[in-house]
C-alpha cells in the first residue's frame, strides 16, 4: 500500500482514497456509515471560514467533519484530476 496520510493533512481541493479508520468508537462508526469506507475516493472541498470543520465530497454528496475527526481517517493522496 502506498504511503497514507491523515485526511486532515491533505490540501484543500485535492483528492484521496480512504484507506482506513483505525478508531473504533461509535462516532467513527457513523463516519463509516456515512460512506467513508476503505477504497472510497474523497475530495477535500473547503474548510469553514475559521479553518474548521472541513467539507469533503464523498459518494457524490457533501459531508462536514471536524479536523479532530479527520485525523482519524487515513487516506492515500491521489494525483490531481485534469
Amino acid at each position: 500500500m502506498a504511503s497514507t496520510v491523515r485526511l486532515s493533512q491533505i490540501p484543500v481541493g485535492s483528492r484521496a482514497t480512504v484507506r482506513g479508520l483505525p478508531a473504533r468508537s461509535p462516532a467513527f462508526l457513523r463516519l463509516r456509515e456515512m460512506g467513508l469506507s476503505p477504497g472510497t475516493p474523497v475530495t477535500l472541498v473547503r474548510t469553514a471560514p475559521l479553518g474548521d470543520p472541513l467539507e469533503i465530497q464523498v459518494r457524490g454528496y457533501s459531508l462536514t467533519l471536524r479536523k479532530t475527526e479527520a485525523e482519524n481517517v487515513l487516506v492515500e493522496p491521489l494525483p490531481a484530476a485534469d
Partner: protein
Amino acid sequence: MPDPAPETSRSPFPGGRLPVYALVGNPNSGKSTLFNALTGLKQKVGNYPGVTVERKVGTTYSQHGRPITVIDLPGTYSLAARSPDEAIVRDVLLGRRADTAQPDRIVCIVDATNLERNLYLVHQILDLGRPVIVALNMMDLAVAAGLDIRVARLEHALGVPVIPCEAVNGRGLVELRLAMSRADLPLSRHRWDIPAQIAPAVSELQASLAEHDGKQPLIARAEALLLLTDHDAVRVAGSTPLSERTDAILSGWKRRWVELDVDWSGSLVNSRYDEIGRLCAEVVRRSTRAGPPVSDRIDRVVVHPVWGWVVLGGVMALLFLSIFTLAEYPMNWIDGRVASLSGWVRGVMPPGDLRDLVTDGALAGMGGVVVFLPQILILFFFLGLLESTGYMARAAFIMDRLMSRVGLNGRSFIPLLSSYACAIPGIMATRTIEDSKDRLVTILVAPLMSCSARLPVYLLMIAALLPGARVPVGDKVGLMLLMYALGTGGAFGFAWLFKRTLLKGAPPLMIMELPQYRLPRLRDVVLHMIERAGLFLRQAGTIILAISIVLWFLTTYPKPDTPVTAQEQIAHSFAGTAGRVLEPVIKPLGFDWRIGIGLISSFAAREVFVSTMGVIFGVEDGRGADPVPLRQALRDARWPGGATLFTPLVCLTLMIYYVFAMQCMSTVAVVKRETNSWRWPLFQIGYMTGTAWIVCLVVYQAGRALGY
C-alpha cells in the same frame, strides 16, 4: 408493475384491514414533503411516551379510497442509533416498543441524487423481513445532475418495488399509492455476504433472539446484525431490553473479537457498502455535465471566509429584526383583546372572587400563553425556510469553530441566537441538535441570553437609576450592552462548565451532511410552523395557565376585611407576606420586601415586575404602565430608616438579578416539556437564581464598600 390484486378479498391482515406503513428515510431526502403529500392535513402529532421524539401518524387512501395508516419516523442515516430520534426509528421498526405496534410494511424514501449513501439505510431495512417499497424521490434533480438511474434494474436487484417520484410536485404519488394498496407485496430476496469472521456470531445471536427474546426469525436476523453495529446502543424509555442469554452471547463474541483484533462493526458496514457500490455501478450512469453544480457555486459565496460572515450576519439580523418588530403588532393586539375580554367579563359578572379568578387568573394566564404565539410562529417560519433551503446546515458549519470553544457544536448556534428574542422558541428549536447532551446544555443556558421580556425591567431601572428627565442615549446604550454581554457571557460560561462537569460526553462531533440548496416549499414550512405552535399551546400552555392562577391566588389572598387600595391589598397577600419573609435573604443585595413581592410576582414573566412595582408604589392599578410617575415613585421610595431604596447601585444590582435569575414560568413549562421531567427545569431555576443571588451579592457589597 402488475395489476394490483383486489385489496379487500386477499388482505393478509386480520379483519381485512389495510397494512400499517412506516415511512423512513435519510434526513434531507424529502420525507416530510412526501408525508405531507400523502396524508395532507390528516396528521396527528404527539410524542412517544417517555422521550421527546415527535410521533407523527397520518392517513392516506388506497386506490379504492380505503384509509391506510402511515407512521412518519424521524429521518435517520442508519438503524445503528446515535440519538433518541434514531433509537425510536430502530425500535419501532423492530417492534421493540409497547406503545407502537410493529408496522406491517415500510416505505423507504431515497434521494435519487445521492443514491449510494441513501441505499445504506435501504440495505439495513431490507434485512427486516418486511415488505418494502422504495420511493425514489427527486428524480428531476437527478436528471438535472446528469444521473441516469435504471429503475428496472434497481428494482430487480433489490427485489422490491421502486417507484420514481417527485414529492414536491406530486409526480409518482399515484403509482406510490397504488403500490401501497397492493395486497401481495413481495419480500426482498436480496442476500449479501456477511464477513466470514462474523457470520457464526450472527447465526448464534439470531437463534438466541428467536428462542429467548421471542423474535420472529427474519426480525431476529436483522436484530442480530444491528446488535453488532449498535455498540453503545442508545436506550430510550419504552423499549424492551435484551434477554440475559442473548446479552451474554453478544459480550462473549465481542471479547473474542477484541482479542483477535477484529473490527466487527466496521467490517459489517464495509461489506454493505461494497455491495451498494457494485449495485450503483450497475444502475447509475453518469453523463458528464458542464461546470460545478449550482449548490457548489452558491457555497463559494455562502461559506466564503469573508462573504460567509456577511451573509450569516444578514440572515441573522433579518431573523432577529422580524421577531422583534413584526411580532410586536400581533402581541399588542393580543394584549388588547385579552384586556377588552376581561373588561367585558368585569361588566357581565357580579364583582367577587369568581370574577377576579376569571379575569386576573384565567384570562391573564391565557393571555400570557397566547402572547408568545407570534414570536413562535415567526421564528419557526424562518427556521423552516432556513432548514428547507439547506442554509441551516451552512450556518452550523460556519459557527461550529466558535461553538466548539465551549464544547458545543454549530447546531446550538441558532437556538441560542433565537433566545435573544425569547427563550421559548429558542428552546423549542433545540430539536435540531442531534446529540442529547449538547441539546440539554443548550436548553439549560438558553434562558441566560437576554430576552425581550427583560427590556421593560432594564428600561425602568435605567430610568430610575440615571438622574434627569432625559436619559443620555450613550449611558442607556452602554448599560443595555453591559446586560446583554453579561447574559451572553453567562450562557457560554455555563455551557463550558456543564460540558465539563455535569454533562460530560464523548468529544463533540460535527459529522453533518451539507444538503444541496433547494427552493423551500411554503406548504411544508407553514405546516411545520402550525404544528409547533399547536404543540406549544397544548403542552406548555396548560402549565403556564396553572402557574398563573397560582400566582394570582398568592397576590390576592388573604383579603383584608375592609376594602382597601390595591397597594394595601397586595401588601396583605401571601405574596406580601412572602416578600417580608424573603427580606432577610435579599437585603444583602439591597432589596426590600416590596422588591421581594416584585421578584415573586414576576416569576410569571419578567415584565410583570414593572406592573407589580406600579401597584406596590401606588401609581397605577397594574394595568397600563406609564413609566414617568412610576420612575418618580421609585425615586421617592425609602427604607424605614429614611434611606433611599432605589439607589443607582440597587438599580444596577436589580438589573443584574434579572440577567441571571430564572424569572419565567413559560420557560420552565417549555423546558419541562422538552426534557420530559421536572428535574431539569428545577435544576435550571436553582442554578440561574443561585447565580443571580451570588453575582448580585458581590456587586452590591463591592459597590457599598467602594462608597456607592
